[in-house]
């Protein structure tokens, strides 16, 4: 108990000094000429390490583009899904670019920029399958991973008369698609386009959109100047198509239409 108290006191003290020293994050970034970006490098194809041991992925290239545009040196802070937000709260990183979806719970503790990408959840089918709407999917068997958001969402669409085949995990679901047991899968757009990469004889493409989760850059609360600059940057690069190019390069599909400029 005593120890926890000490740690708490020390961290509060530390937090205060840090806060005092960095009254404005944007000023500090400009002064040091360096931006620290928290990115998870273990979630391909958003963040990963290539064969030359260099970080790559859509989030990595987004961060590189930002640093280049702002004329800053880029420093990656390796993070995991769970430590993304604490990283900016404790000032270990300036911003988060790490497949961070915008949720109301998170918005209570950090600020979000405008969305720069999206996590697209879709029903994807063999390219040869004619399917444009939910009606076309009636009676077709759709493979899902059991218990995922796609499973729950599609299970609740009772009036749409969908036939679901539930597999234990993504790997088995993809095998079902590759081997020909399933002609349709409900999963992320990224996985759908990867099926065709791994099994060129059975190319899949997104057919019907289920939901899109906005992915945004996260930063500490109370940094209006940095937030404004990030928003302007995101808007500009969505408009000139650069973010779409990065997304397509790694995820195999374009950003949702309403995001493209």
């Amino acid at each position: 108990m005593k120890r926890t108290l000490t740690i708490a006191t020390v961290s509060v003290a530390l937090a205060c000094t840090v806060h005092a020293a960095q009254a404005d994050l944007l000023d500090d970034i400009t002064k040091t000429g360096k931006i620290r970006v928290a990115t998870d490098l273990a979630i391909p194809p958003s963040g990963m390490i290539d064969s030359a041991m260099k970080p790559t992925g859509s989030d990595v290239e987004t961060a590189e583009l930002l640093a280049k545009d702002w004329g800053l040196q880029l420093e990656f802070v390796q993070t995991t899904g769970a430590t993304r937000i604490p990283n900016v709260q404790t000032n270990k990183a300036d911003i988060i670019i790490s497949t961070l979806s915008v949720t109301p719970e998170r918005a209570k503790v950090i600020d979000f920029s405008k969305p720069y990408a999206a996590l697209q959840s879709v029903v994807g089918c063999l390219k040869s399958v004619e399917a444009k709407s939910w009606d076309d999917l009636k009676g077709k068997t759709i493979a899902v991973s059991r218990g995922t958001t796609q499973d729950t969402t599609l299970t609740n669409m009772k009036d749409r008369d969908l036939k679901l085949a539930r597999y234990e995990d993504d790997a088995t679901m993809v095998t079902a698609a590759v081997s020909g047991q399933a002609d349709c899968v409900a999963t992320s757009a990224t996985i759908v386009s990867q099926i065709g990469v791994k099994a060129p004889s059975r190319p899949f493409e997104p057919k019907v959109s289920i939901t899109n989760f906005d992915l945004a850059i996260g930063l500490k609360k109370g940094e209006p100047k940095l937030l404004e600059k990030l928003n302007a940057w995101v808007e500009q690069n969505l408009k000139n198509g650069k973010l779409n190019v990065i997304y397509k390069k790694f995820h195999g599909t374009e950003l949702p239409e309403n995001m493209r400029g």
Partner: protein
Amino acid sequence: MGLNLDFSVVLERWPLFLDGAVMTLELAFMAILIGGAVGTLCAVGRGSSNRFIAALCAGYVEAIRNTPLLVQIFLVYFGLASIGFKFSAFSVAAVALAINVGAYTAEIMRAGFESIPTGQIEAAEGLALSRVQVYWHVILLPAIEKVYPSLTSQFVLLMLASSVTSQISAEELTAVANYVQSDTYRAFETYILVALCYVVLSLVLRAAFWALGLILFPRRRRLGTSL
């Protein structure tokens, strides 16, 4: 650390569990029917004087008894689809389970056949029974009667093993359980309930085999003893 059990959310999904239990029984029934026949034929084939048939049956039994059931199921499910045959998960599960239980049945039946004394067969031939009559009344039925408890136990095991077919999206009892627990986050309650369901199914299966034994074997019916 108090254990906080809440069965209500799990119990209100009882129609799902019922569907799952029915499918588990259907799977077991199909597999026992096909597998039992295949196994018996295979046991006969292993003793055949035709060396090719004997080797074929021995190869099948050894291949199945030395590989895991899950691997066999994946081989049939994804293998068949890769070469262009697409069957429903249920049929593939039933066939894969039948192939599996067939090999074990073959070994059990072989023991049954070997337990029939040559003198018994010679006596039947001496009484001028036809070949079919000898096979049916003097060899097959007594052989089954002798290994009946082992067969029953193997078939109950098969019913329990059908749980792994949830992996290839057959919606049997375990698949339902996996789904319900991912939906309700009440894993402990769900699996307790499913375990109870399996106990009931096992008892039902045992009772069915006991009744079948009474019908098949007159000695049991009349004297209450087995061979």
